């Protein structure tokens, strides 16, 4: 059983560009959360998707947007990249009903130059 997978593993972008990160949840999970983890800090909650809708959102600007597909996979889009967007982006999944133990993917390391 594959766990949570994310792509790409690493990404280098230039300021002002746009980026799309992808996440496939663990089998049987229908809810996906995205986090940003800057160096030396804990993960910061970006948003959560359930039934193809954004259910919760953290304190991130509108440049950060997402999508969930019918197969529960998800994308995170970031527009007009800033140097401060450089971070590890983590995706976590869990079943919408029942326990909220979240399973994390390996993350995408985004570097903005």
């Amino acid at each position, binding site marked *: 059983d594959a766990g949570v997978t994310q792509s790409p593993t690493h990404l280098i972008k230039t300021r002002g560009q746009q980026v799309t990160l992808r996440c496939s949840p663990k089998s049987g999970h229908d809810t996906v*959360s995205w986090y940003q983890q800057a160096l030396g800090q*804990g993960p910061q*909650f970006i948003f959560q998707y*359930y039934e193809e809708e954004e*259910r*919760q959102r953290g304190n991130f600007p509108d440049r950060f947007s997402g999508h969930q597909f019918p197969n529960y996979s998800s994308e995170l889009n970031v527009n007009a990249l800033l140097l401060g967007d450089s971070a590890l982006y983590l995706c976590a999944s869990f079943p919408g009903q029942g326990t909220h133990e979240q399973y994390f993917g390996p*993350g995408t390391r985004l570097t903005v130059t």
Partner: protein
Amino acid sequence: EDKVVQSPLSLVVHEGDTVTLNCSYEVTNFRSLLWYKQEKKAPTFLFMLTSSGIEKKSGRLSSILDKKELFSILNITATQTGDSAIYLCAVEVPEAGGFKTIFGAGTRLFVKA
């Protein structure tokens, strides 16, 4: 503003020592407190605590929650070099049909051989 504070931020011990990691929180609403271990990228789940005073135990690791004083501790006995990692504490905050997860900055533990 919801926040989770961990202490110490970093810790260096020798193999065989016992360590106690602290987590305090201030949130508008509380569902559960979780502990994760992060070695390379993906945090891995350790414990979920919802009730005060009930110790959760897994091998050499144990954790307990005090909902009156708003804190939790994670104990690791007979530490090994493989315990070297970042330990993250997180609180689930219910919101409008869903929830968000607030992480602390983590405690960086280094166990010397």
